Structure formats: C-alpha cells, structure tokens
C-alpha cells in the first residue's frame, strides 16, 4: 500500500521532467541532463518539507535542477574533464529538420554560448527556456534587479557580437 504519495510524486516528476531536462541541458549538463534531473528530483522530494506555502512549484523545482547542473559541472571539472563541454552545442539545432535560416540561428546560438557564464545563464533562462523575469530570478537564485541588469548586458553583448559577425560575413 505504498501508492498515494509516491504515485503522486511519480506523476509530478513525469509532468515536470521535460522542462527539467530542457533546463539542465540548456544550462550546460549536456548528455548527462537526465542524470542531473534524476538527482534533482530526489533532492526536491527530500526538501519538500521546506517548500514555502504559496510559492510556485515550477521555479522552485527548476532552481534545484539549476543547482544540480552547477554541482555536476563542478564535479566534472574536479574529475578533470579534459575540455569544457560547450554549454549550448550546435547539435541542439536539429539539422534534419527544415529550420528556416539555419545558419543565422547557429550563429545566434553560438553567440549565446559564448557569453560569460553569469550572462549566459540569465539569457538562457529568460529566452531559451522562456521563463519570465521572476521565474528566472528564482531559478538562478538571483535578485530581480540583477536578472534585469544582466539581461540587458547580455542582450547588448549579443547585439554587438552579431553586428560584428554580420559585418565579417558581408566582407567575405
């Protein structure tokens, strides 16, 4: 008779797993995203007692996923991973599908991947994961104001980067 709560939790995991895996992947967990997410859901279960009533579930879960992604990254650096995986590899853009304007998109993705970490994660949450500012703040454990300022700095960097790339392309 261990249905009930555990079944309920299994359903919750199933419901939020796609977004959790997407978050872990885009924040840099790469092919280990599912392991990271499994770990995150185990931790989330054990921390449910500390979940504040009235808070929103999704960003709370995503914050655990984001922390776990960071831990995972640190651990692989400690283990001496030879090279740092690219946070947002080009393979994320499915070449098999007719993605309009494929090259421009690859360039944009590479530009986001090339941002300094603290700007990259904010831009990733806000635009690639399509979280709003409040959710981005919760997920990354940052104050709202910091999210705002990093977003505008991130966008400015991207704009400069893309103008530069565009100019080079024009001259080729």
């Amino acid at each position, binding site marked *: *008779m*261990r*249905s*009930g*709560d*555990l*079944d*309920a*939790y*299994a*359903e*919750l*995991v*199933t419901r939020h*797993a*796609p977004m*959790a*895996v*997407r978050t872990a*992947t*885009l924040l840099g967990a790469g092919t280990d*995203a*599912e392991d990271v*997410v*499994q770990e995150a*859901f*185990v931790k989330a*279960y*054990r*921390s*449910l*007692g*500390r*979940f504040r*009533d009235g808070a929103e*579930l999704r960003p709370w879960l995503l914050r655990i996923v984001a922390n776990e992604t960071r831990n995972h990254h640190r651990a692989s650096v400690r283990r001496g991973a030879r090279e740092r995986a690219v946070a947002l590899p080009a393979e*994320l*853009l*499915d070449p098999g*599908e007719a*993605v309009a304007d494929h090259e*421009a*998109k690859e360039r*944009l*993705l590479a530009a*986001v991947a090339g941002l300094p970490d603290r700007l990259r994660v904010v*831009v990733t949450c806000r*635009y*690639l*994961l*399509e979280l709003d500012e409040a959710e981005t703040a919760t997920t990354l454990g940052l104050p709202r104001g910091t999210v705002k300022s990093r977003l505008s700095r991130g*966008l400015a960097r*991207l*704009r400069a980067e*893309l103008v530069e790339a565009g100019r080079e392309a024009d001259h080729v």
Partner: protein
Amino acid sequence: MSDRLETRLRELAGDLRVPEPGPGLAGAVVARVAKPRRHRLRWAVVAAVVLALLGLAVSPVGAKVTGWLDVGGVMVRDDDTVPTGTPVVPSESGRSLDGAAFEPLVPAALGPPDGVRVTDDGTLVSMSWSAGGRTIRLDQFAAGLDPYFWKSAPGAEPVTVAGRDALWFAVPHEVTVVPEGGQPETYAPRLSAQTLVLPLPGVTLRLEGDLSRRRAVEILASLE
C-alpha cells in the same frame, strides 16, 4: 533592434531540440526516495529524538504534492517493521510496560493491548489491538508536539478529546523527520489509516486505525 533580437531568441528557443526524458525517470526517482536512508538513523545519540519525531513531524509534504496534483494521498508513517497493508503490530510484542520513561496511558475503551513495545530508551511506547483482521495502534511519545506541526498540519481537523485540543487526520499524510540541525528525512508510505494526534503535557499520543472520528475520539477520551 532590441525587439528584433528578442524575437530571434524566442524563435531560436522553438527550434532547439532537447532529448525527451526517458520513460524510466519517474520510476527511478521514486525507487530512490522510497528507500529509507537508515544509516543516518543509526546515530545512537539522535535515535531517541528521531523516534519521537517519527510520529510527530508529519509534514505538509503529502498534502502539498496531492494539492498540486489533485489526487488522493496515503497515510505515511515509518516504523522499523516490514511494510504491510494494515496497521503495524509492534514487533517484539510483549505485554510489559516496564522501561517506559513515563507513565503510559491505556484506553479503557479498548481494554488491555495485544501487543506492547517499549523502546530501549523508554521514550516511545507502542500498543496494538487486533480484532476481526483489523488493527488499531497507539503510539505514545515522551515529547511535546512541535508547535510548527500544530500550525502547519494540512488537512487536519481540530477536535476536542475530553476537553483537550487534538488533531484528526481523515486524509492520509506523509511523514518527514527533521533531526535537529539536519536535513528533513522523508519516509515512504507504509499504510493507509486515519490518525488522531493528542498532545498532553510531556507526552504526545497518536492513535491509528480504520476508525471513524467519533470512535477515535471516544477511544482517546477513555485513557486511564
């Protein structure tokens, strides 16, 4: 230009392909959380505290999860006995109340218990009564009820037992233990039963079984 870049980023989001979670993910998570992490409980020093908290720190966890999902939950409680579908008769059952650190109470409405167990340190006394395939269990903890529990207990109905405040849980809950200064430990469901929690000075009682609220109140009102 700003809008243009933001639009492009949003379009990019739609084109990113991330693998779907494998079908085994939820199962793997549940298998891991269902396993009680016993090694932590072996700390002799905290064992007594933990035992007392097992029955007391019924957390809002279950209610939260079920609240999110709108499905029924299950009464969760932990014990050192094997999982079973009915309330648990204390293992190593005996009849002796020797060794209890306090004066255990027995509900006259149920008569002498069929099984009694006193923990080594005497801070937890468990009694059970079985009849017609049904079991009622009463745990008595030499500890006060956590005020936080009292305030936060979700789905609890305040009731009065012989003039004292008590909490009735018709909807099952999950148990999380929080050792002092430690991480909350959540315990997997073991059985489904209604519960009446009655705090008395220095002792907290928990009555479990397939009981109506009226019957549960009647039983605890007959404590002697």
